[in-house]
């Protein structure tokens, strides 16, 4: 039986890679993917603890996370396409009209 801590460590690693993806990559799509990765990492940890606590609630939570992620991806990509139409690029740094 693999102890839960390993799963949580894996989830932490994946989460960190997701964060790095958001911070470093300049292509909007890859940023979205990294966000998805972070969500998955969270799901993994949830399921791991669900098994440890023998409470199915964790898995229900993951279920909801997935649905929300789906909605989020839909809207995000729609936005991305809209921006691409007007700015001809997917680079986030170009999109900096809203400045202080």
């Amino acid at each position, binding site marked *: 039986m693999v102890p839960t801590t390993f799963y949580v460590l894996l989830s932490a690693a994946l989460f960190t890679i997701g964060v790095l993806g*958001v*911070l470093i990559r*300049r292509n909007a799509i890859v940023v979205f993917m990294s966000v998805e990765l972070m969500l998955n990492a969270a799901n993994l940890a949830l399921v791991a603890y669900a098994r440890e606590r023998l409470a199915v609630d964790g898995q229900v939570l993951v279920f909801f996370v997935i649905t929300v992620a789906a909605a989020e991806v839909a809207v995000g990509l729609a936005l991305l396409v809209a921006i691409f139409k007007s700015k001809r690029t997917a680079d*986030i*740094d170009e*999109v*900096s009209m809203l*400045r202080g």
Partner: protein
Amino acid sequence: MLNWLIWLIPLLPLLGFLLNVFVIRQERQAGLVASALVGGSFLLAVVATVMLGGMPEEERRVQTIAWEWIGTGTLSIPFGLLFDPLTSVMVLLVTGVGGLIHVYSIGYMHGDPRVVRYFAYLNLFVTMMLMLVMANNMLLLFLGWEGVGLCSFLLIGFWFERKVASAAAVKAFVVNRIGDAAFILAMLAIFSHFGTLTFYDVEVDGQIIPGFLAQVPNLLGQTFGPEWQTIAVATGISFLLLIGATGKSAQFPLFVWLPDAMAGPTPVSALIHAATMVTAGVYMMARTEPIFVASPATQSWVAWIGVLTALIAGTAALAQWDIKRVLAYSTVSQLGFMVAACGMGAYAAAIFHLLTHGIFKALLFLGSGSVIHGTHDTQDMRKMGGLRTAMPTTYWTYLVGAGALAGIVPLSGFWSKDEILAHAVSAGYWPQLIGLFIASLLTAFYMGRQVSLIFFGTQRDPHYHAHESGQAMTVPLVILAVGAAIAGLMNLPTLFSGMPAAHLLTDWLKPVLHEEAGKFNPLLALFATLGAVGMGYLGWSVYTRNAAKVKVGGQDPAYYYTGDIWDTLEAAWYVDTLYQRAVVGPFRSIGNFLAQVFDPQGIDGLVVGTGRFFGWVATGVRQLQSGYVRMYALVFTVGVVLVLSFMLMIAW
């Protein structure tokens, strides 16, 4: 009866002042009302003095309190008058000489557009001087003290169109104010140590208000100041009073304002800058005599300041061309004599000299006024000469005055000056004696010089036709001349044993000053007379022999012998220029620096600067909103990391 009578003495001139300011507009009335009221208060003074004389010697002190002037916390200062022998003598001098000068002014100031205002100021001056002299506490004395300062400002600056007059007026008031600052400090110290400012105990409806003069002895031990240099309290107070006196009586450090004060009308110079105001310092020292006696240190300072002033002013008077400036410096010099007398403990002699000087110096000033009036306002002696034929009465009265000042035997000046020198001899103040003796010789010389320059030789400046002054001016001159001659009888020393009316004044002042009359010193009297007559003749002969050398606007014949020293003397050892450069100049530059640089940029800079600093910080923070999404994410992550690590720390 005497209680309410003494109130009338200062009230009459005050009434005159109010009438002249608000009611009277016509010149004739102003002159008459003013002189009449001052004359009236003179008569009252005589009556009061006679009544005072009638009372037994030890309770010759009348005090009446009108109301409580300042009453807060432990401070309680009455508004009350005092009438004792010393006051009576001063009041007689002020109202007597003042009255004569008022009459003289009617003639002298005739035709001046603002003559009504002139008489108002003169009356106000007499009121203030009477308040000064008759005050029963230091604060009321200070009211008179600054009041006369104000009147001298108004009267010196009477012809304020002239730049010289307005500058002299402001200078007089400011220099007096410096002295007054020290006076205030002294009053504060007196009150803090004695709890009262009234001179003598006075009984007011039941309870006694204590006087501080009696409590001076218990002051002896106390000292104040830093440990390394403790100063006796008595010395501190008396030294401050001395500075106050030097400010008002134009003594060494603060005498620069008196010569400039000659810019005012001549009767003003006679009244204020010869007879009354300048003597206020000497009167104050006589009144607070116990404090001065309690600190020998200050007494020696007082004596030396007196001698020093006498010498400096005496030498300066030698080299003046303006007729009034000679007399001004001579006044400063004679005041030096009085202060020196106070310093040596001869207060009665100082008062005696004060009285005689008041009379013959007023006579000299009025004489010079009549000369100026007669020669159509020329004040430069080089333009005069040979006026004894054109103005006989002025000439003879002037001669009497000059003789009295020089100290020729029968005249009053001799007796009073001799009294001071005799006291110096008997009390063993040898160095001061030598200084004063030289000063008296100088006095005789410059009076001789002045008389010969004005009245002898030929008229050097043809532009005017000299004429004798009118009745209103010559009558006071004659009265004063008589006074100058016989004033000596007041305090004749005991020439031979069993002499009937010997040293009347000293006995009269005994309840206040507690002094015994000094014995007569024939040898000194001989020397003094010889010196006076000799130097007087020398001065007269030098300037009559080479009268030809004296040109209008030319050099003094003595310049040949003295060279530049003559200029130093004329500028009174450059004391005035020293102040101008060392005090007034830096003060102005500091003022400008503070006003232009330090205040607007310095302090204000801090205030406006804080405003601008916040603006700068705001722009800095604005940079953070750069529009880059990734930067926001980064900041977000940094936030997360910090919070989590902090929570970790706490949990640890």
